[in-house]
């Protein structure tokens, strides 16, 4: 502390409320829109059970209440039930975010005993053919249906997640019907966000405006229908920000609520941030307390001192924080730029070009780059 002059008090940074534990990058599926880093195959050793438990304890002491087990496919971790049990004992609300591949009735029951609160299953499409093509697996769809039914039979709340894109968004009515039939408590109809593998495959994934508008209209019709029936199933429609004129308030602000830990212990303010040219701290080297409050990476885009124009003088900067840092970096090469989704951005033409491309793209599913070890290794070397 120094006492020459005075400065305005810094806004007090609250604790992380959400912890995302990306337990592993291993996954039996090969979705071409995976949000894992392109070079996942080149990353370090996974955290041990004991290391994860330490992370859970530290975050819980700081105030985190929601814990997501994710990946990759978290079911690949043989210690998953033990990790769930530890987390639940600490008082977390525990969410398993899975593709359902590798899930069994026995595991569903064991996780329940361990205290798991909720299971989210991701689907790739509403029918076997498209689903299996996208997942890169012939049996994926049947397995998912079976496991979704078992999850409900064991009394869990269940959220179904459909990543939508130009190859499945026209089936949105069938997707919603399927979710209602499976007794989902909520459905995330999440149009691809273009990070990681999805960014690589953007031209083959971004729906056209007409596709998107139709899907949103149908979703709204189903919402009205469900509301009229007093049905509790909640439809969450995530618009791709490529069709917005203002950026999304990404993660509720950088380092504001959300803390993600990758398989090798790298701590990130969002699960995509690893692709930024910033050295993020590792839980093997620092306490979460230090990482959250004091590390360079977590403070890099807090507040608004970092903002150049047009964000700096923008009267909406407190609402959207200039949008997404990862998207700014991916599309402009500079993570501190305004998110090009914003019509005020000097780089907004990139978004306009992508929209135009979506009107005419003819890329088929089998022309996309599938997320697998082989492709990832090639990318690492490249």
């Amino acid at each position, binding site marked *: 502390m120094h006492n020459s002059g005075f400065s305005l008090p810094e806004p007090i940074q609250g604790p992380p409320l959400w912890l995302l534990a990306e337990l592993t990058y291993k996954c039996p599926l090969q979705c071409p829109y995976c949000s894992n880093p392109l070079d996942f195959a080149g990353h370090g050793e996974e955290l041990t059970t004991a290391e994860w438990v330490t992370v859970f304890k530290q975050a819980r002491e700081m105030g985190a209440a*929601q814990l*997501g087990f994710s990946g990759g496919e978290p079911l690949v971790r043989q210690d998953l039930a033990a990790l769930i049990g530890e987390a639940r004992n600490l008082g977390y609300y525990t969410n398993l975010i899975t593709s359902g591949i590798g899930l069994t009735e026995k595991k569903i029951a064991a996780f329940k005993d361990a205290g798991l609160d909720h299971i989210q299953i991701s689907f790739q499409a509403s029918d076997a053919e498209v689903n299996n093509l996208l997942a890169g697996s012939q049996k994926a769809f049947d397995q998912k249906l079976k496991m979704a039914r078992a999850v409900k039979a064991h009394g869990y709340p269940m959220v179904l997640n459909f990543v939508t894109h130009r190859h499945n968004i026209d089936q949105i009515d069938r997707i919603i019907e399927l979710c209602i039939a499976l007794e989902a408590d909520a459905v995330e109809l999440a149009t691809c966000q273009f990070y990681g593998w999805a960014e690589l495959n953007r031209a083959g994934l971004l729906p056209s405006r007409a596709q998107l508008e139709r899907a949103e209209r149908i979703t709204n019709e189903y919402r009205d229908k469900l509301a009229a029936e007093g049905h509790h199933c909640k439809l969450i429609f995530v618009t791709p920000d490529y069709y917005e004129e203002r950026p999304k308030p990404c993660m509720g602000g950088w380092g504001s609520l959300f803390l993600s830990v990758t398989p090798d212990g790298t701590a990130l303010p969002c699960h995509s941030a690893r692709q930024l040219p910033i050295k993020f701290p590792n839980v093997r080297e620092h306490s979460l307390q230090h990482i959250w409050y004091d590390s360079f990476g977590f403070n890099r885009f807090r507040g608004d001192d970092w903002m150049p124009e047009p964000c700096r003088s923008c009267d909406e900067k407190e609402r959207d924080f200039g949008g997404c840092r990862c998207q700014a970096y991916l599309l402009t090469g500079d993570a501190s730029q305004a998110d090009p989704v914003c019509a005020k951005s000097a780089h907004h033409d990139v978004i306009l070009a992508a929209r135009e491309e979506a009107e005419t793209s003819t890329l088929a599913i089998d022309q996309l780059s599938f997320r697998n070890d082989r492709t990832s290794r090639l990318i690492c070397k490249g």
Partner: protein
Amino acid sequence: MSDNVKTPSLDQTPRLRPGYRFQWEPAQKAHVLLYPEGMVKLNDSASEILKLVDGERKVADIIDTLKARFPAAADIDEDILGFLETAHAQFWIQFT
């Protein structure tokens, strides 16, 4: 799966919807309601009501208990009924 109730009646019994958890969070100095991938921070009155939503007490019991505890609070009946109606509309609670 749906229970299409509007205003709760006094002899109904509210309980948290399966998958919802009500707990005290020291870091937030507040009670919260936790549910799949979500969290609501509750104010003091909502917390006092939800403490009594246990799947056993009827709406009438909840009102009586809170009236006895907060004798100075005016119109407490309406506030409790209003909150339960909202909580039901949000699908936080169910009535049996």
